[in-house]
């Protein structure tokens, strides 16, 4: 039982929630709440949304174009005659699906490449590093555009569009995971415990999977959340440039913003403000989580308890990143 509780406390997010104090805890909780709302909306969009995302009419006839918010259409309708509220809600589903496709693909490929490249080394490692650095220097949006052109040749349906957006974002992210994991692997493979495992005859694959990989993933939660946020932004940007998903195949916030560009100059605000806010909430939630985890993992950035807090709890919380010298943590610079 005690072991189970201990495990629970060390899980990501739960551990951070225990560590965080003051407004840093507030940031983390706010981030979790916003992300939670988006996930719930994505899961239950079919139930919550008043209309379908591509629905143009109901029993009373057509919705009409650019209708201001009213009791029937709480957030009004778009220039194409869609219900804004319904498209905003359904859009959460598209965003979450793209995050899943993009981040899962890039974690699997990036971690695998980083692990093998860092562990094996040699000329393959050098070449991969140069390529990863080059991609890292490439403007991500441009890379996503050319990847989207290659994958779908432009606009497309739900699954092909989702995969196109997901894969084009993957191309951007793989080098990030690759670099982080590779750096950790190179550091860890010289450690005595890896050598011991090799000496007692563990196969390279076992050493890599059990001894190296498990110890090199501590930065992953931060990159994961920040990448999820960036994936939503990239999807929206692709949609805004006209390289997204067809409006009849799925609701996508970036596409809706693209269509609302002309509305803005005539004072029609509801077609742009609500999809935009949906993007902001999604990205903000994920970024707040990522930033909080990042700050908490770094003793120099972690908000410190006031002097009156017991030193034992502060010492216990320092376990996350032991190799950083505690010089700054001992100073009383809070006030």
């Amino acid at each position: 039982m005690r072991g189970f509780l201990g495990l629970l406390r060390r899980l990501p997010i739960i551990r951070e929630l225990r560590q965080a104090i003051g407004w840093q805890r507030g940031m983390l909780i706010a981030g979790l709440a916003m992300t939670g709302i988006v996930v719930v909306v994505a899961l239950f969009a079919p139930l919550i949304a008043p209309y379908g995302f591509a629905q143009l009419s109901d029993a009373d006839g057509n919705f009409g174009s650019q209708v201001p918010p009213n009791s029937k259409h709480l957030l009004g309708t778009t220039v194409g005659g869609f219900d804004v509220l319904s498209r905003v809600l359904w859009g959460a589903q598209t965003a979450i699906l793209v995050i899943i496709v993009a981040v899962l693909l890039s974690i699997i490929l990036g971690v695998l490449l980083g692990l093998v490249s860092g562990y094996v080394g040699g000329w393959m490692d050098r070449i991969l590093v140069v390529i990863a650095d080059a991609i890292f220097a490439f403007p991500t949006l441009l890379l996503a555009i050319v990847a989207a052109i290659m994958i779908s040749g432009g606009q497309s349906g739900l699954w092909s569009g989702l995969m196109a957006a997901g894969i084009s974002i993957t191309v951007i992210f793989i080098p990030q995971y690759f670099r982080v994991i590779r750096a950790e692997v190179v550091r860890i493979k010289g450690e005595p415990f890896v050598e011991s495992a090799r000496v007692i005859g563990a196969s390279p694959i076992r050493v890599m999977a059990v001894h190296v990989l498990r110890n090199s993933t501590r930065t992953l939660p931060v990159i994961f959340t920040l990448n999820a946020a960036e994936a939503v932004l990239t999807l929206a940007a692709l949609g805004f440039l006209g390289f997204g998903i067809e409006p009849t195949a799925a609701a996508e916030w970036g596409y809706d913003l693209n269509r609302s560009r002309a509305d803005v100059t005539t004072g029609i605000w509801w077609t742009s403000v609500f999809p935009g806010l949906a993007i902001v909430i999604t990205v903000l939630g994920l970024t707040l989580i990522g930033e909080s985890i990042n700050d908490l993992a770094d003793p120099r950035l972690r908000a410190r308890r006031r002097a009156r807090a017991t030193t034992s709890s502060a010492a216990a919380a320092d376990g996350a990143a032991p190799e950083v010298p505690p010089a700054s943590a001992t100073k009383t610079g809070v006030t």
Partner: protein
Amino acid sequence: MSGLWRYVLVRFLLIIPTVFILVTMVFIFMRGIGDPITAALGGQLTPAQLAERVHSAGYDRPVLEQYIEYLGQVLRGDFGRTLTDNRPVTEVLLHYGTATLELVCYSLIVAFLVGIPLGILAAKVRDRWGDATLRIFAVLMYATPVFFLGLVLKLIFTVWLGVLPASGRANPRTVIALDRLDGSSGIYLIDALRVGNPAYLQDVLSHAILPAAALGLLTAGIFLRLVRTNMISTLSTDYVDAARSRGVGEYRLTTVHAFRPALVPIITVIGLQVALLLGGAILTETTFEWNGLGSQLTLYLAKRDFVAVQGIVALLAVIVAVTNFIVDLVAAAIDPRVRY
């Protein structure tokens, strides 16, 4: 050869593989869909006409041969001709590149003026409400897509307050006057200053405010975060304590003793932000119909003119690589520890 010069040379030689890989990637991606002529004109020509165009442009040759020819052209600075309006891509790049450069410069000014002082302030008042507010501002700026911020700014300042123009780089009359100028630089601010007509100057500046604010605030959020983190580490070093105990004033302590060493990592990261800034510029230009490379890229994308897209993307990638090189040099010049 002294250390610094060798470093410059090594770093310069490192650009070559980067540019080579970038240009190759663009080629592979853009050829992944087949030949650009079918993509652009597929619906408009008969299959026989199409085949003839494809043949005369050489797109039916082996891919490797095309690739080598493409590399040779890029080396000579020749990016081909656009398919839809038959202009040399290089001309498009030169003509619209200055507009993008102007926008990026304005927004960098906004980003520096907003991001750096606020970042220093956040580090000074760390963990108090002022810091919390500033950090939320920074995260909010990151979370807001630049095109959405642009639309909101337009709604507020153009539609509701009616104080600033909605789009474009200047009024049509100003554009005509400035484009006709002898030896026009393409950068409207400089041209307007040279003409010396205050009406033009006011027109150009009022058009620049909203795009510069949208793109600049996005970048300012990143700068703020960066400056804050680095200032927090330098403010807690022993030499800052030592200087404080010698009686150095708090203002001088912050701006000189703590800020200068914090500047090195900041400059390095700013180099990486150039890529982000260019991506943001594309979106900002599309939002504000700012007639630069970004809005041209969007137009050519819509027309499926992938030769033009390929040229613009390759050029922007090269610009980013070169900028990173320059930034590394600046960082080396400031930081006495970076020596090869």
